[in-house]
């Protein structure tokens, strides 16, 4: 379009800054583990050798919110856990994303009662919901790929 035509064939590649930033974000998105129940077992399995989430730039699960970009809420969130979840989310630096893994985190699942939050989107904004009880490690990875597609289409304004 612009500068490539002027420069001619000089081996220069141009890209939009947004695309470069989103590319960088999807290549090193460190998840914060938030294992609360049986879904955490599948999350650990997704991190282990057979499924290996480090292929998607998730080299390690951070237990500390200050070093993480993505919160994977795996398991049922009780009413008492909800303020803790919100506090940890607030401690994460921007930009941040949330995957709600499993039925219980997404909408309460089979636990339709007073003790369980009926979906973590009551507490934090959720980007991707993964269905399953618990979801297979592949399903979690599918959710991560869905999130990456979403991140790739984000603009600077979304995080302004």
């Amino acid at each position, binding site marked *: 379009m612009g500068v490539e035509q002027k420069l001619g064939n000089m081996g220069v590649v141009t890209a939009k800054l947004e695309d470069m930033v989103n590319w960088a974000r999807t290549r090193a998105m460190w998840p914060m583990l938030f294992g609360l129940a049986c879904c955490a077992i599948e999350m650990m399995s997704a991190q282990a*050798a*057979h*499924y*290996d989430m480090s*292929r998607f730039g998730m080299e390690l699960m951070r237990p500390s919110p200050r070093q993480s970009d993505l919160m994977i809420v795996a398991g049922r969130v009780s009413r008492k856990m909800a303020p803790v979840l919100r506090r940890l989310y607030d401690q994460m630096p921007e930009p941040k994303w949330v995957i709600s893994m499993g*039925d219980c985190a*997404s*909408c*309460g*699942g*089979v636990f*339709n009662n007073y003790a369980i939050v009926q*979906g973590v*989107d009551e507490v934090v904004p959720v*980007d*991707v*919901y*993964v*269905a*399953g*009880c618990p*979801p*297979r490690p*592949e*399903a979690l*990875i*599918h*959710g991560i*790929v*869905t999130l990456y597609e*979403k991140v790739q289409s984000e603009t600077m304004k979304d995080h302004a």
Partner: protein
Amino acid sequence: MRFGEPVLELVRGMWITFKSIFERPVTVQYPEEKRPVRPRFRGRHVLHRYENGLEKCIGCSLCSAACPSDAIFVEAAENTDEARYSPGERYASTYEINMLRCIYCGFCEDACPTEAITLGDNYELTFTDRRDAIYDKDMLIEPLPAGSDELTPQKVKPGVHTRAVPEMKNPDD
């Protein structure tokens, strides 16, 4: 402790690490390469049809009664011979499953008297909006078998499809 013992332990430990260099990698390259599911795996639901194109579901709501997480909603309507969806008196005019509520236990499959609903092998259910998780009948019902073009509702001769549940041929089955 002898002098060489810590070194020996170190070498022994590193030998295990060294041996794993020659092992084949176990990682399944998931989005490109998919591991086949087990025969009894329970994934996304499918609503089935008979060979003549009629729906197997008769709208009895037994699946929704059996569902432990109340994920299924069924609304039934009357069949007529001019507009027939399923054999028998009634059919499911609305059939919705909330995929985020469903725990994939397979009780609906067990409760179904006509074997209309089964759990398939699709596990890739991710949504960016909670409302997208409610699958309606058009998404769940299986496409028409190849070669047949008879959609539901069908216009049929009166007195043919009177039985909602097919007759049992083999009682041991």
